């Protein structure tokens, strides 16, 4: 066996067929991996939703489902709105300047992160790892929260805290504020979530 000289032409063909086979193998893997992508049905399920907010009172929240995610519609009290600027120093991104295209549409890039100062519309999913934060409206000291707590949200999974404008506090696992979905008012009491005027 070792005495036979190497037939380099045969070896070249072996390498060539091996490579051709590998290309075929990889090409076959493409349809298999592609089946992992969201189906056409899943892609189509992202339509905008309409919410009636006529019954929403100050200090209350409605949870609507949009694209399988909870969207919170919260009516803040005047005191809660007044408290927002005082928190700027403790927040990671008080002016919503980080990745604004992903998290904050232009009409919500303000102190209260909303179109109307009292009504916050936010996706109730923590940007860290996707849990839905729990409401912690009551101010004051309580477990897992600082003693000067002014009301907001606490993520039960990893302890990120957000103020009542969905802005994340400093040095918490979540790098970003809560996402403000595209939304617009169809009238004073009817809200469309998933679409805005420019779209």
């Amino acid at each position: 066996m070792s005495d036979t000289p190497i037939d380099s032409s045969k070896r070249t063909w072996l390498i060539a067929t091996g490579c051709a086979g590998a290309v075929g193998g990889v090409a076959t893997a493409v349809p298999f991996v592609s089946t992992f992508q969201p189906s056409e049905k899943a892609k189509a399920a992202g339509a905008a939703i309409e919410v009636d907010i006529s019954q929403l009172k100050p200090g209350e929240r409605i949870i609507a489902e949009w694209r399988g995610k909870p969207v919170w519609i919260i009516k803040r009290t005047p005191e809660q709105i007044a408290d927002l600027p005082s928190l700027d120093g403790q927040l990671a991104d008080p002016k919503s300047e980080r990745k604004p295209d992903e998290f904050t549409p232009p009409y919500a890039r303000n102190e209260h992160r909303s179109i109307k100062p009292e009504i916050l519309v936010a996706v109730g999913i923590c940007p860290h790892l996707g849990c839905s934060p729990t409401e912690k409206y009551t101010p004051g000291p309580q477990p897992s929260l600082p003693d000067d707590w002014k009301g907001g949200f606490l993520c039960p999974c990893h302890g990120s805290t957000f103020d009542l404008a969905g802005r994340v506090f400093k040095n918490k696992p979540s790098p970003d504020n809560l996402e403000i979905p595209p939304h617009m008012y169809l009238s004073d009491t009817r809200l469309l979530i998933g679409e805005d005027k420019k779209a």
Partner: protein
Amino acid sequence: MAEFKEISPNASAGAKLTNWFENRFPTMFDAYRVHMSEYYAPKNFNFWYIFGSLALLVLVIQIVTGIFLVMHYKPDAAKAFESVEYIMRDVPWGWLIRYMHSTGASAFFIVVYLHMFRGLLYGSYRKPRELVWIFGCAIFLALMGEAFMGYLLPWGQMSYWGAQVIVNLFSAIPFIGPDLALLIRGDYVVSDATLNRFFSFHVIAVPLVLLGLVVAHLLALHDVGSNNPDGIEIKKGPKGNRWSATAPADGIPFHPYYSVHDIFGVCVFLIVFTAVIFFAPEAGGYFLEYNNFIPADPLVTPAHIAPVWYFTPFYSMLRAITTEMVYVLVACVVLGAAFGVFKAKLPGVFKGLIAVAAAVTVALMLAIDAKFWGVVVMGGAVIILFFLPWLDCSPARSIRYRPTWHKYVYAVFVVNFVILAYLGVQPPSPVGERVSQLGTLIYFGFFLLMPWWSAKGEPKPVPDRVTYQAH
């Protein structure tokens, strides 16, 4: 092909039948000899050595109960939770099969953690058993995947939000992360598509991989031979025992000696296992979490979510990585690099490489979110185990002959691991955060500093033969 064996016409019917098979399927008979009756294991095994067989037993329990559960379970987001309740209430003895499977999952991790700790105690991963250890770590990794995907199937609140968190871990990877998470879920949120593919992975793909790895783990083990509590290589010792003149003198055949030893272990294990199944199948919310008895609700995360106990040490480390902690890690990288450059005896080229690699790492650590580094730390905590054979530089293999203070280092590691596990089931708190950050440093310090500390101290004299008292 093996020689065809003729048998005397006067032989018994049993012997004739055996001979008939041996001539037609000799591989089976060879395998029995190589792995059972002529596999010579050291004679000084102690109770720590039952966990390998127990892991195999639990694997069989999981496969058998799993097959029966699949007959009644429906992998459909609208029906999954109901079908599990149907198994629990309406299928005759369904509750038993289900509790065997759910308790089996926790039992698997208990047994595997003890099995791994045994390896750590006696240096079972040291040369020439590196591959045995690496296959074992791969089994552990596959098992974590299997357990995680299985936990989604009951479609309870914990199933749903646990999967949501873990899948989102992947989205923390820069650039490809969000698309990768989408590819795993098959939808923009954890949904029916996710449930279906996790079901497929849980019942077909991962078990096949697991079985293949278990075979590789055992074959590699039987090629190099088992380690023992003394860490002495019996193959290097004198030859000849009462069964074979060429086998190691300190070896005894696996069957019947260790098969009987393991059957005793199996009996003790089954007493505990069945006690849990019959008297405390939820194990106080640790084996089956209370929130998982509530159907999945994509709009509300339960007030307290925590992974099942076996993931909690790693989960604690994930939670420990905050922006502040990244600065601490940066300091660690800088210190490590400074040590490499100024203290280690290395050629200048390597020192330059270390400095450049450290600078790049620090730049990345400051540029990318803490969230990603949390994922890296959690993954790294498992991956680092693969490197243990090369991290341990102690002259003595077994803890028995290492300097006494090494035992305290191991004790700190174990206590720290348990504390991390405890913190992982607790809700986040400022004190818990600090403790878990310290715990993360201890965990990684144990492994990364091992080349230094394990070589320190005066090892005790290692005897030539294994220590063994006949009883």
